[in-house]
């Protein structure tokens, strides 16, 4: 069974602070995706990382894929209240029948306060 553990589970910080969320896996995935989920909505893709050691930036968000493609991190610089939400990592595997199967992490609930 593939498991992805995220830490921390909950994070409450002040506007302007930096934070890092970690996603650790017992398995290697073909790629890893980060999603953000708002209450009452489905997850929305932020980024896909594919290559071991890859770093991707999305404005104030920096995503890194570990060299062994088993772990990843999300770093947010100067957090804003609009960053509040549930952040989910998801390991991607490819069923033989096609498509992408996502194994979601346990989630990190971020709250950024003024």
């Amino acid at each position, binding site marked *: 069974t593939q498991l992805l553990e995220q830490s921390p589970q909950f994070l409450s910080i002040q506007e302007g602070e930096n934070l890092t969320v970690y996603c650790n896996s017992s398995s290697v995935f073909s790629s890893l995706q980060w999603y953000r989920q708002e209450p009452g909505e489905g997850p929305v893709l932020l980024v*896909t990382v594919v290559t071991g050691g890859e770093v991707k930036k999305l404005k104030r968000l920096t995503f890194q894929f570990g060299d062994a493609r088993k772990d990843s991190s999300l770093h947010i610089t100067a957090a804003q209240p609009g960053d509040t939400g549930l952040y*989910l990592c998801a390991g991607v595997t490819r069923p*033989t*029948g096609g*498509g*992408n*199967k996502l*194994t*979601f992490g346990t989630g990190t609930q971020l709250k950024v306060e003024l």
Partner: protein
Amino acid sequence: EPEVTQTPSHQVTQMGQEVILRCVPISNHLYFYWYRQILGQKVEFLVSFYNNEISEKSEIFDDQFSVERPDGSNFTLKIRSTKLEDSAMYFCASSQSSYNSPLHFGNGTRLTVT
């Protein structure tokens, strides 16, 4: 921007009843998925569907579950005889292609089994 739509947003049913959850994926997408999220738990893969066939299913997707694409636009999840533990948020998703393609999620159907 095209989106995945799900109906109903909330379904309440009695234990033992059949329910059908409906989804309209994005029109040019080829791969379709159902995920569920029990309250307070992580998002879990149920099934993927491609070319009118199930390409992969999880252990959760037992004989009580079935999926269908009846008319080329709708994608449905049927639970034949609901149990209390089926209460969850059910998310439909679709993707355009197979390789690392992002999944686009609907806003979910909250199923409550009483």
